[in-house]
């Protein structure tokens, strides 16, 4: 039954090759596989459903065939986008020359299981320090260009762009549209991140997506995506889902916004608000300066109002009065002094008069002295004391006259 080795001269027919491959593959055992359902083709009336199972991280997929009965039974599980675990046996279909996994069991990856996996990954990444506050970078106050990663024509894109533009009309976006759920999402998100991170004009990157089920948001808790975000040189903002949704990428991002609208607010300053703030600051500055001037003015006014400055002459008048007083008293002093001295001199004069010959002189007598040149001139008491020519000094009541002896004694 087995033909000899194939040669150019004796090639094998197709049927032989496909049979051999089918036999070889048929020897493989059954496996459990986990993946994401990318496509489901299950037409009613046919016996077999065709499914595509995709690897959530790598761009790799596998065809599945399943009996329609099984698909119908698992109607809630067999939905495009769902994570599933299937049990099947690799089979080769000679008719189309295709390989597929003939599935006999399908089960959903439970929500609990998904959450437990996310939790394990969360702990791992936290232990590695990817969530550390110290790693968070500040967003630029006003980015030159914003890189936006979001679904094509999505509400998230609209919310981010509209909100940011309303605040800062000149804002510039570079938008990379990707799948934001399903099997292709992670690879496309990571690629978009890398593209934007390489653009030197992009100062901040936003990952935006609207709300969804835990399964829908799974790409944003993916380890590859989280590590790609951590590796970005550009600050990354996450804006995934609604308020209660916190995929792991929220922890890795430099800023976590609860919604795309909030991201739009946080990315750019509000032009009107900033203008108002500057006006407010300017106003405060002006008021402070006015206040300062007013305060100084009041101080100056109060100083001016002080008596010394308000009525400088008052103090001078007081001093003038004092001066007058002093002057009057010095005057009185000196006058008293002069009077006292005068009285004393008067007394002395009176005593001198009483002691001296003034009274006798007043009656017409005279004192005649010989003017010998000595200090004490002797009185002339006898004619014999003088000769002709001798100088005499004659004192009468009101003064002294000088005389000379004409003749000697006349007796």
């Amino acid at each position, binding site marked *: 039954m087995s033909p000899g080795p194939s040669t150019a001269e004796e090639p094998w027919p197709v049927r032989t090759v496909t049979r051999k491959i089918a036999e070889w593959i048929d020897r493989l055992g059954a496996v459990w596989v986990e993946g994401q359902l990318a496509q489901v083709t299950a037409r009613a009336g046919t016996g077999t459903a065709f499914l595509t199972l995709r690897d959530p991280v790598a761009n790799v997929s596998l065809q599945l065939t399943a009996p329609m009965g099984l698909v119908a039974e698992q109607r809630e599980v067999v939905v495009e986008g769902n994570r599933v675990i299937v049990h099947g046996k690799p089979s080769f279909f000679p008719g189309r020359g295709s390989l597929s996994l003939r599935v006999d069991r399908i089960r959903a990856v439970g929500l609990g299981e998904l959450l437990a996996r996310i939790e394990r990954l969360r702990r791992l990444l936290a232990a590695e320090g990817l969530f550390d506050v110290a790693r968070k970078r500040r967003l630029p106050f006003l980015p030159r260009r914003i890189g936006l990663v979001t679904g094509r024509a999505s509400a998230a894109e609209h919310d981010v762009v509209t909100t940011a533009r309303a605040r800062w009309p000149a804002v510039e976006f570079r938008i990379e549209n990707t799948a934001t759920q399903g099997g292709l999402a992670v690879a496309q998100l990571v690629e978009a991140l890398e593209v934007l991170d390489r653009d030197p004009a992009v100062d901040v990157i936003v990952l935006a997506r609207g709300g969804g089920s835990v399964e829908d948001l799974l790409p944003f808790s993916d380890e590859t995506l989280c590590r790609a975000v951590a590796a970005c040189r550009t600050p990354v903002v996450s804006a995934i889902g609604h308020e209660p949704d916190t995929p792991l990428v929220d922890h890795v991002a430099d800023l976590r916004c609860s919604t795309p609208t909030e991201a739009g607010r946080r990315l750019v300053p509000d032009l009107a608000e900033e203008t108002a703030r500057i006006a407010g600051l300017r106003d405060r500055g002006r008021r402070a300066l006015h206040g300062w001037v007013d305060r100084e003015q009041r101080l100056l006014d109060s100083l001016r109002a002080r008596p010394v400055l308000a009525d400088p002459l008052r103090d001078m008048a007081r001093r003038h009065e004092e001066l007058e007083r002093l*002057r009057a008293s010095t*005057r009185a002093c*000196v*006058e008293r002094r*002069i009077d006292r*001295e*005068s009285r*004393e*001199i008067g007394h*002395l*004069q009176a*005593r*001198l008069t009483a*002691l*001296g*010959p003034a009274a006798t002189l007043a009656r017409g007598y005279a*004192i005649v*002295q010989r003017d010998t040149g000595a*200090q*004490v*001139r*002797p*009185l002339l008491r006898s004619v014999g004391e003088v000769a002709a020519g001798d100088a005499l000094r004659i*004192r009468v009541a009101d003064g002294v006259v000088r005389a000379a002896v004409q003749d000697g004694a006349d007796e």
Partner: protein
Amino acid sequence: MSERKPVAELGYEQARDELVEVVRALETGGLGLDESVALWERGEALAKRCEEALAGARERVEKALSDAED
């Protein structure tokens, strides 16, 4: 009474003090007549000097006051 300065060279206090001395000496007595007359003349001169000094002082006060009032 040996070194008697000319009265005109004496200050008011010197003249007054000497006048006091002259009066006391004359009151005490015991001097010769010549000396007494000489002393008395000196006394009159001293008294005159003192009065002049006081009159000068009084004049200066009045002048200063009248100047100040102008």
